C-alpha cells in the first residue's frame, strides 16, 4: 500500500469520527420558564425542556435543585391551596402522529417528600382548564369557555382526578356531562355536606362537584364519581326551556345549613348576565330515584347583576340556623339584597357601592382574637370596593367597611367604615395557623401604599410605598414581603403576633443584585421544627438569562448575608 493511500485513509477515518458528534438537545432549547410557589421551594416550569425544576433553600442559604419531567406542551400549572402540591397539565403531542407521541396528561407533584413524589395521570384528550379542590382531595380538568383546542372537541367531557387518600395507582374518571345544549363553564368542589342518604334520618356526609354550564347546573356526588358505573347525573336547568338565553356563570356559594339536618344544604348560583340569583336546596328524593337527594330550584331577582353572593347569618338565635340568608351585593344600584329561606328579598341601601365581601366572623371571634367565640351568628362581613360605577353613571366612593349583620329590616346599620380613602386593588389574607395571625388582612392600594388591617380592633395601619408593590404573605403568617416587579427593591414587613398590636409592625428594606421576578417564602430543607415552626428562607427569583435567585434568611434578612445563586436552569440541566 502506498503511503499516500495510508494518509488518505487515516484522514478519512478521523474526519468521519469528528463529524458524527452531536450535542444534547437540551443545550439548544430556548428559556421559556415561569415560577410557582411551594411551601418547600420554588417550582420553575422549564417548558422547553419539558420539566419542572424545584429549587429549595438550604440552611447556608445555598440552593438544591430537583428536576421533574412533565408532559409536552404545558397548558396549565397550579399550586394546591395548601402549597404542598404542584399540578402541571399538558396537551402532550396532540393530535398524535406517531406511536411515540405523548398523550395529554396531568402531572401531580407531591413536594412534601424528599425527593418529591411524581404521579402522572394520562388523559384521553387535551383539557385546557383545571380546577382544584380546596381540601386537596380532587382535581378536575375541563374544556371550558374559549376556542376549542383541537379540530373537534367534546366540551362536555371532564376528567376527575382522585388525589387523596393516595391510591396504589393513579385514579381518574372521564365523565361526559349530560347536556341540554350548554357546555361546562365553571366547576366548583363543595365542602363536605350533610345530605339525605335515602335510608337514615341523619343523612350522609359527602362532597359534590358543581358543574355550571351556560344553561344549567349539574351536580355530581364525589362519593360515587369513581364507581365503575357512576350514578345518574343531576342536572337542573336555569331557564324555563322556552328561550335560547345563555348564562355566563359568575360563581357559586354553598352552605350546609344545620349540620344535624340533612335536608337543608343550599347552593346559591349567580351569573354575570342575569339579575336573578338561583338557589338550590338539596332535599330527599322520591323513593326509587337513582340519587338519594334532589335539588329544588328557586330564583330571586336582586334588581341588577350582583357582584358577589354569600350565605350569611343574621340572627344570634339558633332558630332557623341563626337567620341564614343569601346576601347579594349589587353595586350598580348601591344596595345589598338579602334573600331568605322563602326566597323573599329585602333590599338595603348601602353608603358605598361595595363590590366584594368576605365573611370574617370566624376570624374575629376566634379564641386568638380575644373577642370570644360566637357559636353561630350574626356574622360580620368585610366589604370593600375598587372604583365602582352605579346605574346613574356616578362613580361611587371607594373604601372598605365592616358590616355587623343583624336583623334585616331594610335599614342599613352596623356599618363601620375603615379609613382607607384610596382605590383598593386587592385585599389579601395573611397565611398561617389561626393561633398566629387570625385577624390581619393586607389591603393593597391601586396606586401606591399598603394597609395592614386588624380585623379585631378594626384599625388599619398604613405603609407608604414608592409605586404599587407586589405582596406575598409568608405561610406562617408572621411576615409580609413587598417587592417592585422587575425592580431590585424588596422589603420584609414583620407582622405583629398577638397580643402585639399594629404598632409592632416593622419594615426591613432589602435589595437584590438583579431585577426580581417573584418572591417565595419557603421552609429550609432538612431543618427540624424547633417548636415554633420550621425556619424559613426567602427566595427572590431573577428571570434573567437562565434564571438566578437571591436567598435571604427569612427570620433575619439582610442584604449583606444574602446568597446569590446563578444559572439555575443550567445547573440541573435535563
Amino acid at each position, binding site marked *: 500500500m502506498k*503511503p*499516500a493511500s*495510508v*494518509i488518505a485513509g*487515516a*484522514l478519512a*477515518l*478521523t*474526519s468521519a*469520527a*469528528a*463529524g*458524527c*458528534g*452531536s*450535542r*444534547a438537545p*437540551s*443545550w*439548544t*432549547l*430556548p*428559556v421559556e420558564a415561569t415560577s410557582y410557589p411551594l411551601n418547600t421551594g420554588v417550582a420553575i416550569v422549564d417548558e422547553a425542556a419539558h420539566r419542572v425544576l424545584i429549587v429549595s433553600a438550604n440552611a447556608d*442559604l*445555598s*440552593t438544591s435543585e430537583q428536576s421533574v419531567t412533565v408532559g409536552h406542551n404545558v397548558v396549565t400549572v397550579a399550586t394546591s391551596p395548601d402549597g404542598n402540591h404542584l399540578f402541571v397539565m399538558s396537551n402532550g403531542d396532540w393530535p398524535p402522529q406517531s406511536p411515540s407521541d405523548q398523550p395529554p396528561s396531568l402531572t401531580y407533584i407531591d413536594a412534601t417528600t424528599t425527593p418529591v413524589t411524581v404521579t402522572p395521570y394520562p388523559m384521553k384528550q387535551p383539557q385546557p382548564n383545571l380546577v382544584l379542590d380546596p381540601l386537596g382531595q380532587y382535581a378536575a380538568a375541563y374544556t371550558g369557555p374559549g376556542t376549542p383546542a383541537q379540530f373537534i372537541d367534546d366540551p362536555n367531557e371532564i376528567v376527575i382526578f382522585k388525589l387523596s387518600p393516595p391510591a396504589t395507582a393513579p385514579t381518574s374518571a372521564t365523565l361526559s356531562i349530560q347536556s341540554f345544549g350548554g357546555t361546562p363553564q365553571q366547576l366548583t368542589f363543595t365542602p363536605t355536606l350533610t345530605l339525605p342518604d335515602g335510608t337514615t334520618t341523619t343523612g350522609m356526609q359527602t362532597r359534590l362537584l358543581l358543574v355550571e354550564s351556560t344553561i344549567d347546573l349539574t351536580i355530581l356526588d364525589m362519593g360515587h364519581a369513581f364507581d365503575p358505573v357512576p350514578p345518574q347525573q343531576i342536572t337542573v336547568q336555569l331557564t324555563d326551556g322556552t328561550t335560547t338565553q345563555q348564562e355566563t356563570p359568575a360563581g357559586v356559594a354553598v352552605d350546609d345549613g344545620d349540620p344535624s339536618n340533612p335536608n337543608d344544604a343550599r347552593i346559591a348560583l349567580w351569573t354575570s348576565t342575569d339579575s336573578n340569583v338561583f338557589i338550590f336546596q338539596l332535599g330527599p328524593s322520591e323513593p326509587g330515584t337513582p340519587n338519594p337527594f334532589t335539588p329544588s330550584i328557586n330564583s330571586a331577582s336582586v334588581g341588577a347583576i350582583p357582584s358577589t353572593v354569600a350565605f350569611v347569618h343574621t340572627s344570634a338565635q339558633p332558630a332557623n340556623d341563626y337567620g341564614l340568608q343569601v346576601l347579594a351585593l349589587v353595586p350598580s344600584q348601591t344596595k345589598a339584597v338579602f334573600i331568605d329561606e322563602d326566597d323573599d328579598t329585602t333590599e338595603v341601601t348601602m353608603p358605598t357601592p361595595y363590590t366584594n365581601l368576605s365573611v370574617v366572623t370566624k376570624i374575629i371571634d376566634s379564641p386568638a382574637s380575644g373577642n370570644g367565640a360566637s357559636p353561630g351568628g350574626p356574622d360580620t362581613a368585610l366589604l370593600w370596593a375598587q372604583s365602582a360605577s352605579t346605574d346613574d353613571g356616578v362613580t361611587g366612593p371607594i373604601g372598605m367597611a365592616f358590616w355587623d349583620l343583624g336583623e334585616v329590616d331594610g335599614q342599613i346599620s352596623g356599618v363601620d367604615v375603615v379609613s382607607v380613602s384610596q382605590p383598593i386593588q386587592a385585599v389579601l389574607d395573611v397565611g398561617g395557623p389561626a393561633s398566629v395571625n387570625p385577624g390581619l388582612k393586607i389591603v393593597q392600594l391601586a396606586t401606591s401604599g399598603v394597609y395592614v388591617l386588624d380585623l379585631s380592633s378594626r384599625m388599619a395601619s398604613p405603609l407608604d410605598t414608592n409605586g404599587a408593590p407586589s405582596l406575598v404573605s409568608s405561610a406562617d403568617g408572621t411576615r409580609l414581603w413587598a417587592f417592585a416587579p422587575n425592580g431590585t427593591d424588596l422589603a420584609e414587613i414583620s407582622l405583629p403576633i398577638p397580643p402585639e398590636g399594629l404598632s409592632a409592625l416593622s419594615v426591613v428594606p432589602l435589595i437584590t*443584585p*438583579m431585577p426580581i421576578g417573584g418572591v417565595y417564602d419557603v421552609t429550609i430543607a432538612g431543618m427540624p421544627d424547633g417548636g415554633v415552626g420550621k425556619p424559613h428562607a426567602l427566595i427572590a427569583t*431573577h428571570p*434573567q*438569562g*437562565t*434564571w*438566578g435567585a437571591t436567598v435571604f434568611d427569612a427570620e433575619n434578612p439582610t442584604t*449583606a*448575608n*444574602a*446568597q*446569590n*445563586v*446563578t*444559572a*439555575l*436552569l*443550567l*445547573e440541573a*440541566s435535563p
Partner: protein
Amino acid sequence: MKPSPWSLAAAFAAAGITLSPTPASAQAVAPDVADVPPTSPIDHREEMTRLELGYRGSFVPDPGFDPFSNNDFLPAFSMAVTRTVFAAGRLSFAAGVAWDNEGSTATIRGIDGGSLRMNRITVPLEGRLHFGPWGYAFARAAPGVAALETQVSDASAPATLSKTQWLFATDLSAGVAWLVWPRFERYRMTARYWLQADGGYGFVAQGRLNLGPDLPSGSTQRVDGVDLGTISMNGGFFRLAAAISF
C-alpha cells in the same frame, strides 16, 4: 500575549526560507545514487530536529463538553518540536515537547455563551520507521498536562462564571510523515520540508465543571457559581501538520 496560529505559521515559513540553502532546481539534478557522505555518515532524513505546525481536530463525545460545543468537535492549533535521540537502521526514536491550543464556543439555551480553551502541553515520545526518500511512519505517545479553562456568560450572574483546572493528559497516535523536499541528499545538512498526518486518541483526566463568578477583588457579594457536572476531554483526534527539519 499568546502567539496566534497564523503568526506562528508565518514565522515557520520565514524560517524555512532562511534556512533553505538549496534552490529547488538544484535538488532536481542531485540523484540519491550520488549521495555520498562527504564528511559525516549522518542521515539527516532520520536524525534531525523537527518543528511541526498544524491543525488538530478532536472529537469529544462527553456530555460535559456540550455546553461549549455545537458538534462535539474541538479544533486546535498544534505545535511540536522533536529531536531524534536514537537511530538504528530504518528505526529511530525522537522526543520533544508539544503544545496544542484548543478552543470552542457555543450558545447555551439561546441566551448564554459557553467557551472552553485547553492548552495541552505534552512530551511526545515517537518511534519512527523510515522509508528513505518517502519519509517515515511513526507511533507517538505524548504524556503531559492540560490547562482547561471554561467560562459561561449568563445574565443571571453578576460576573462571568469560570474555572481553570490543570489535568493530566496523554495522546496516543500513529501517522506518517512525507518528505516533500529535498527528498535526496540525505547526508546534507539542510532544511527539509514535510507534510504529515496522524490520528489517535487523546486522554485527559476528568474535571469538574463547578464554575465560580469572577468577582472583582474586594467584592463582598456572596455568589454561588454553577455546577455543570463533570467533563472528560477524552476523544479521538486527527492532526495535519507541516514540518521543517534540520
